[in-house]
């Protein structure tokens, strides 16, 4: 874990003034390196620009200043090949079955049908969706729909996976289980993962490193190394180290959250 995979240099984002709103300095400046294969978690008070940061890395949004590079190549307002994103909102396609949803991205490529079928079957099994292969999203729970979106992303084998609070709308127990699943998928895929969450527990149990962001305009206040190694997931919740990490996170975030609330 020594090679820089995604690099941000002096990234800022200013939303220009509109009729309804003054100019908003949303983000930065941010300098950040995501290392190849690491699990990086971003926490921060609401409205601090976490999602904007993710969109800039994904190429969905342009930085006002600064630059992002993926594997040494600049990302500028266009989504590069090799990036997968799962959003907080349900992004499943309601007109397609679970199978067709998961195969969607692969069908845009030249991959042959047999290979697509193999990968989709594998993803269905991995996500526990085999019994729902022919179901439509409306028949599934919110957690299952998020798993469909996660599967749709994973079958494309992205080298960087960006997750914007994908479990934000789920209950605590489901989130813990999804967290463990996510760790397993991350280990199997070898991808670089950046997860945005507002759950300090989730950050503490999943991350290699946790980036703590300030209130708007969001900057990196501190980066905490968890030093979990392979042993992590919901089982670490009972360890003293986990308590130290979450205590430190809360210490950093309390002031920022108060500032964010006062500013809102």
């Amino acid at each position, binding site marked *: 874990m020594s090679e820089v995979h995604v690099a941000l240099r002096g990234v800022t984002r200013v939303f220009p003034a509109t009729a309804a709103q003054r100019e908003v300095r949303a983000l930065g400046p941010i300098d950040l390196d995501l290392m190849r294969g690491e699990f990086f978690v971003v926490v921060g008070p609401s409205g601090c620009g976490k999602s904007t940061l993710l969109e800039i890395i994904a*190429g969905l949004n342009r930085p006002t200043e600064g630059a992002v590079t993926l594997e040494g190549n600049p990302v500028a307002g266009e*989504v590069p090949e090799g990036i997968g*994103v799962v959003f907080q909102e349900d992004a499943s396609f309601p*007109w397609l079955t679970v199978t067709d949803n998961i195969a*969607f991205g692969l069908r*845009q490529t030249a991959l042959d049908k047999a290979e697509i079928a193999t990968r989709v079957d594998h993803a269905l099994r991995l996500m526990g969706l085999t019994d729902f292969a022919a179901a*439509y999203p409306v028949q599934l729970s919110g957690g299952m729909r998020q798993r469909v979106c996660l599967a749709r992303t994973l079958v494309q084998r992205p080298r960087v996976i960006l997750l914007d609070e994908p479990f934000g709308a789920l209950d605590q127990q489901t989130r813990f289980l999804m967290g463990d699943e996510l760790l397993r998928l991350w280990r199997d895929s070898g991808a670089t993962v950046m997860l945005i969450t507002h759950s300090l527990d989730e950050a503490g149990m999943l991350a290699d490193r946790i980036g703590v962001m300030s209130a708007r305009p969001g900057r990196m206040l501190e980066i905490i190394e968890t030093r979990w190694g392979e042993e992590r997931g919901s089982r670490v919740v009972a360890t003293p180290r986990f308590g130290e990490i979450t205590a430190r996170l809360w210490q950093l975030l309390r002031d920022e959250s108060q500032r964010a609330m006062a500013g809102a």
Partner: protein
Amino acid sequence: MTAGRLRFALALALVLLLEALSRFGVIDRFAMIPPSEILWHLGKILSGGEMWPAIGKTLTNVAMACIAAIIVGVILGTLIHGWRSLRETLDPLFAAYYAIPVYAFYPLFIVIFGLGDVPQVLIGFMLALVAVIVNTLNGLDRVPRVLIKTARIQRLGPLATALKITLPYAVPYIFTGVKLAVAYSFIGVIGAELIMSRTGLGYEIGFAYNNFDNAVMYPLIVLVLAIAATVNTMFFLWEKKMLARRRK
């Protein structure tokens, strides 16, 4: 009694009432013939075969007007949706469109295109087109932002995004436009035939009317009703089947 049965009973009661009023001479035979005779004459007309060319011609023209309006309407709707300033320019015009009596242009169309099928199809097309555009715009407005972002993450271009993400999402809304397009195409084509033409169901109804031929006019009116109701029911069932997958 369910709403459906109640509706059927109501329709049946009205028909029976008409039958009774006709039979007891309350309704003059020159004004209208009894429903039972209408059906009997309709059977005779259909089995006689002399009306089939008119039926075929009208249905063909309705289908052409309708299909053209759907294809052009969806394409224009998609283009206008993607072009913001054009959208802002046209929105008020769409809102005012159905205040225009399209039939007022019919003589002009005849001058330009002659007394053939083209002006009739054009009237149906014009009536149907804007309903499709407006409903396509409505459907595209409702596509969640996260699906647009997903399209970009999948690195789809504008055309692929429209064909694979936004239009499929908008299908239930576009379908509302399609149903209106079917209705407006019937109204446009048959209305145009009635006003000025030499063929088609509308023309035959008008011809029978001018000759006080109730034994032809009423059966043909019922035939038009039956065709419209059948097409409408088909679309209703199709829509129900489609929406069952999308909504709980």
